[in-house]
């Protein structure tokens, strides 16, 4: 009996082994172009991971239903293999390796966050697999000389320098004083570098330069300094936690500052969680639905937002929009390359110059998108306490006028 059991378990082990490893996808199976993606479906990035996945899926469905991708006179449909990277960079790198060497994927989509993209990029680079990513903005991604990495989004150092320019403009072109509070992670520090550049360029002065810890839950000390130094602009970047903490404590401590600029406002659902307290905050965003960019698949931002809401039941954050744009870029590159050769597709990607509903896309040498400026929106509330994000800069797309300076707390 014992021997039979051993033999049985041996056979089942072999069967399991085969069933997982033999089924391997090639780059193009029949009429399908198979893309691979490691996405954070669990772990600390899971909500943004899901936004990313929804964006990818939405674009795949749309492109497939509108005729697919035409290469060599034949029509192909997109398909994506997803793996859950558990928000863990090591796991993401392993999965990239698995997607490429085991599943035979020859084209990749990016994961969520700069950190995970940084983990995956060396792998895709090693195998010469073109990767279009939509959620890694850290400047360091674009200075390593990667040849196969393309990002549809603007790099992190451009997030908040617009705010400094805006403050100087509002100050009649004269330099301003800036207070900065940035988390100590790659992304936020890149945003900080951008702000420092803008300060230098405009001849402005930084009066506070605080680094927030990762386990940040209290920035009262920074805000007390702000009250004392009375800067013209307060800039905060510390992911959703930073945005929520800043608004809560600014309101509680009644900190008056003429301009407040932040990142991650829409991911933090600022206006929903804080209501009127978040009013007048300026937020850097890659995309906003009211922008008037157009393409043939999603038409424009408003249509995209409506379609997205119909399918997934919530207003699309920019993470979803940029992820959808990544697929449009791939389709365009495949058709221009008219081939599935990785080198040719890579060259076609490098030569991309197109407009999507998300913005213009044109890649620089390092792979970052240089044709799409960041936008700043301001949280604006009406009398009933309903708050909305309205684009205020750059002026070309502004749907509302910037309210500046922010009214004092005693006057609200």
């Amino acid at each position, binding site marked *: 009996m014992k021997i039979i059991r051993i033999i049985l378990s041996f056979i089942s082990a072999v069967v399991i082994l085969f069933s997982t490893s033999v089924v391997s996808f090639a780059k193009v199976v029949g009429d399908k172009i198979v893309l691979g993606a490691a996405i954070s479906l669990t772990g600390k990035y899971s909500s943004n991971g899901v936004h990313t996945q929804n964006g990818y899926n939405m674009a795949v469905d749309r492109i497939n239903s509108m005729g697919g991708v035409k290469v060599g006179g034949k029509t192909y449909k997109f398909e994506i293999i997803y793996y859950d990277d558990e928000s863990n960079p090591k796991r993401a790198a392993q999965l990239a390796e698995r997607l490429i060497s085991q599943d035979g994927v020859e084209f990749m989509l990016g994961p969520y966050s700069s950190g995970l993209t940084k983990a995956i990029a060396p792998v895709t680079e090693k195998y010469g697999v073109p990767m279009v990513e939509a959620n890694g903005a850290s400047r360091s991604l674009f200075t390593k000389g990667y040849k196969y990495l393309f990002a549809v989004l603007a790099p992190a150092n451009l997030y908040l320098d617009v705010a400094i320019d805006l403050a100087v403009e509002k100050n009649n072109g004269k330099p301003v004083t800036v207070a900065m509070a940035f988390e*100590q992670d790659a992304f936020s520090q890149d945003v900080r570098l951008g702000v420092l550049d803008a300060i230098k360029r405009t001849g402005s002065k930084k009066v506070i330069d605080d680094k927030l810890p990762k386990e940040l839950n209290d920035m009262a000390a920074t805000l007390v300094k702000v009250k004392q130094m009375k800067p013209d602009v307060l800039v905060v970047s510390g*992911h959703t936690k930073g945005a929520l903490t800043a608004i809560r404590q600014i309101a509680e401590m009644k900190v008056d500052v003429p301009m407040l600029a932040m990142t991650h406002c829409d991911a933090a659902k600022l206006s929903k969680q804080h209501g009127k307290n978040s009013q007048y905050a300026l937020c850097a965003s890659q995309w906003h639905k009211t922008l008037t960019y157009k393409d043939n698949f999603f038409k424009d931002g408003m249509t995209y937002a409506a379609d997205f809401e119909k399918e997934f039941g919530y207003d699309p954050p920019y993470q979803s929009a940029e992820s959808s744009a990544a697929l449009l870029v791939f389709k365009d590159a495949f058709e221009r390359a008219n081939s599935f050769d990785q080198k040719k597709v890579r060259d076609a990607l490098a030569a991309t110059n197109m407009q999507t509903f998300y913005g213009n896309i044109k890649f620089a040498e390092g792979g970052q998108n240089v044709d799409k400026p960041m936008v700043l929106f301001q949280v604006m509330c009406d009398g009933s306490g309903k708050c909305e994000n309205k684009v205020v800069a750059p002026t070309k797309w502004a749907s509302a006028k910037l309210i500046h300076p922010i009214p004092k707390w005693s006057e609200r």
Partner: protein
Amino acid sequence: MDFMVFQYPMITVQACLDGLLLGILFALIAYGMALQWGVMNIINIAQGDLVILGGYIAYFMYLYGIHPAWGVIVSPIIMYFIGVGIYKLVINKVVDRDLFISILATFGISILFMQLMNFAFGADVVLANSGYGTTMLFDNNVTLPNSKIFSAVISIVFAIGLVIYMKKSKLGRAIRATAQNSRAAKILGVDTEKVYAATFGINAALCGVAGALISITFTIHPYMGLPYTIRSFMIVIVAGLGNLPGVAMSGMGLGVFEEFADYILGTEFRIGAVFLLLVLILVYRRFKLSRKREYLK
């Protein structure tokens, strides 16, 4: 180095008050840890995760339109039963083993809780708004959010309530007896199993209160538990085991120390400064102990 905090007296006052209010809240969490450490000899790594879970209870009440302040009553009740449940499932199997096993077990519980909370509540950072407003002092130069004052008051009320309960009630006496000598207590008819379960439950309930307060004053997130565990661990170490008034003092002291470190060294060294203090205190303790030993010899 920035000594702005001493140049403006108002900032000094502000830093002291902020630190005190923060410290009192931390002391409440440390209080539970000290209790359970003293009675059961268990270092609970999942302490912070219990806090966060308590915070989510208050947050969900807030979502359903109930004022989150009621969380300080509802959350400890639910958390008490969760605590007893964890004890019955896991802790009772490790309670008599050595410290390492219990650390490992509670570490496992911590990871499990993080993932379950992430699964159930999502990875978004959330908070509950109390709408309590702000108290302005000294000609509007010092601001104290009422939510922080509320947290401190509630923490003090619960801490005092617990001390009285431990002194006066039958279960409280049983807990103290078990802490002193569990075998002797057993012989004298104390059901130590029950005492352990109740202790773990009370600890979880205290975490529940603290969590509800944190959701009102700060933010909560499934992965944010560890800093609370570390801080309460530190407070207990500084105070010494079984020294409940010491826990309150070291909690407040640590809060103020942290706040000043933030101003002087910069926010990035805030936690680092606390760790440095811990190391210094441990070295000092060791030094003092060895002197004592020499003297005894």
